[in-house]
């Protein structure tokens, strides 16, 4: 077990290093003034600019820059934003926005996973039944819908026609709240639209993967043994099949972490949800490279860490890996 983890840990570190290096060079091949990667455009105050030039060595040879970049990285300094006039990138990312994205993505991925796993298992069990066919078709349909269009439809139907959900933002503008619950209620009310959109767009995929995985497991001999023992259907399904079938899902989850940190750019844009996804969009449009670079680094760290955690979890679940 230890050897396995050490090996995976080392591999993760190497990938992380490569990702950071790649990010560094990626943004330096952008057209234009190289100092943009740290300072953005020239519209920050001269004093701030001076400080940054010094910190990041922007007038020095590239390898010096790289070393300073790494040093700054470790100190948590990701440069300053262009569009927000000198605000440090770290405070832009690690603030309200990350919170909003976490809540939205965490809940929708979580709910979609649970639904997808359970329904996928049942559908595989009742293969070729009406339930199975309808759920498969439903999943294929939602999978085929562009996310942003689904969002637009939901706004159209529930926002415009039914007036049930607000059309944009995380909170009602100009409202004051008397207590936490009112605040939370308004927040959640605003979150309904993007939440439903995202959950619907994720659930089809998870469902199909889980169903596929379970059908594979059904062909295994130990399923016949379980049946031969005359165990109850539910026990066979959930204890024997599901445990084996969820293994591939764990590796899949690690990839989904990208969404947890990067948000769903399209959905957040459609609903004007104040999160990282929308930040990415704005930063690209405004060519705010420091912010983009910062987001990339954060996401790389998050995904690689998540992959490593997935490896650990996988080792827990599959005893064969441990040795």
């Amino acid at each position, binding site marked *: 077990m230890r050897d396995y983890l050490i090996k995976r840990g080392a591999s993760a570190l*190497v*990938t992380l290093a*490569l*990702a950071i290096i*790649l*990010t560094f060079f990626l943004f330096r091949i*952008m*057209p234009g003034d190289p100092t943009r990667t740290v300072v953005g455009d020239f519209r920050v105050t001269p004093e701030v600019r001076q400080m940054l030039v010094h910190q990041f060595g922007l007038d020095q040879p590239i390898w010096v820059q790289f070393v300073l970049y790494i040093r700054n990285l470790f100190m948590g300094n990701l440069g300053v934003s262009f569009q927000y006039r000198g605000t440090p990138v770290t405070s832009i990312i690690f603030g309200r926005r990350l919170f909003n994205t976490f809540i939205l993505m965490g809940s929708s991925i979580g709910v979609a996973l649970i639904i997808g796993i359970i329904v996928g298992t049942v559908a595989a069990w009742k293969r070729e039944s009406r339930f199975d066919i309808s759920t498969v078709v439903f999943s*294929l*349909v939602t*999978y*085929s*819908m*562009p*996310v*942003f*269009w689904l969002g*637009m*439809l939901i*706004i*159209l139907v529930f*926002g*415009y*026609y039914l007036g049930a959900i607000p*059309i944009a933002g995380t909170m009602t503008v100009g409202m004051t709240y008397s207590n936490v619950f009112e605040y939370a209620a308004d927040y959640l009310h605003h979150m309904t639209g993007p939440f439903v959109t995202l959950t619907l767009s994720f659930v089809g995929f998870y469902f199909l993967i889980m169903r596929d995985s379970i*059908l*594979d497991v*059904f*062909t295994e001999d130990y399923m016949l043994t379980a049946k031969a023992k005359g165990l109850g259907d539910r026990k066979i399904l959930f204890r024997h099949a599901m445990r084996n079938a969820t293994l591939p899902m764990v590796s899949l989850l690690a*990839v989904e972490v*990208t969404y947890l940190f*990067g948000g769903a*750019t*399209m959905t957040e*844009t*459609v609903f004007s949800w104040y999160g990282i996804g929308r930040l*990415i*969009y704005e930063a*690209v*449009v405004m*060519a705010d490279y420091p912010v*983009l670079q910062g*987001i*990339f680094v954060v*996401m*790389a760290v998050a*995904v*690689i860490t998540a992959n490593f955690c997935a490896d650990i979890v996988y080792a827990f679940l599959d005893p064969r890996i441990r040795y």
Partner: protein
Amino acid sequence: MTQEQAALQLEEERFWVYKRKLRDFWRLYRRSSLGKVGLVIVLSFVTVALAAPWIAPYDPFTFVGDPFLKPSSAHILGTDQVGRDIFSRVIYGTRISLLIGLVASTMTIALGSLIGLISGYLGGRVDNVLMRITDLFIILPTLPLMLIMASILGKGIQNIIIVITVISWTATARMVRSQTMSLKERPFTEASRAIGSTDLHTIARHIVPNVFPLVFANGMIAIVDAILAEAGLSFLGFGDPSQASWGMVLHFADIAGATVNGYWWYIVPPGICIMLLVMGFAFISYSTDQILNPRLRRR
């Protein structure tokens, strides 16, 4: 018989085997209702794309009426904010969406397969390096990368295709690589090398034909991804505004505030088209996978 005759006969036999395999495949495919539906859908769209100039009532790029007209007999889907006929735009949109989808996905699987083949067959150092690169691409978030590349390269169809290709080749590469690696271990590969075939010959003759079926199924998914990617990019404003792809139409709809004003005729049709076209390819992919993937046949 002479050497030449023998070689010719061998070629002919191989042709018949291939033809029979295709016929078997088609026979099985016909039995899958999902596959038939998918094929019908895709062919319908292709027909519309080819016949666009004759089907569309107006030119999609010029303004032919007052802006924001509601659906009527003159304009089935009304007009957009500059007075262009939405219905015509949706019809012409078929061309762009199909074109980008097909070209981008072809390039994606070509690139991905090439890298996968090289990586899987050569192994060792080359494999390591290529896989690290692939991992990096997988880790970095796709949409932001696409947006950045699109903003650097600028607007235009070729650029969209390039962007999609560069971001999407990793999935195919991984799959082809693992297939190649498992095929490399098979006896017929060893036999081929034992009799002295060059690597290129072995790859071309033995590995490629066996990888091809899976690549084909994967290709359908690549088409799906490419169509959705193009739609997304265009919607966010990074597409080609001079073309009327469905994503672009929706982009204009969004700018015009169609959602908040309830212009469902502007929003629903382009989206449904994207959805149907994608579903068509998804169905084909599903059915093809069922037939070609030996693992699935056991179930």
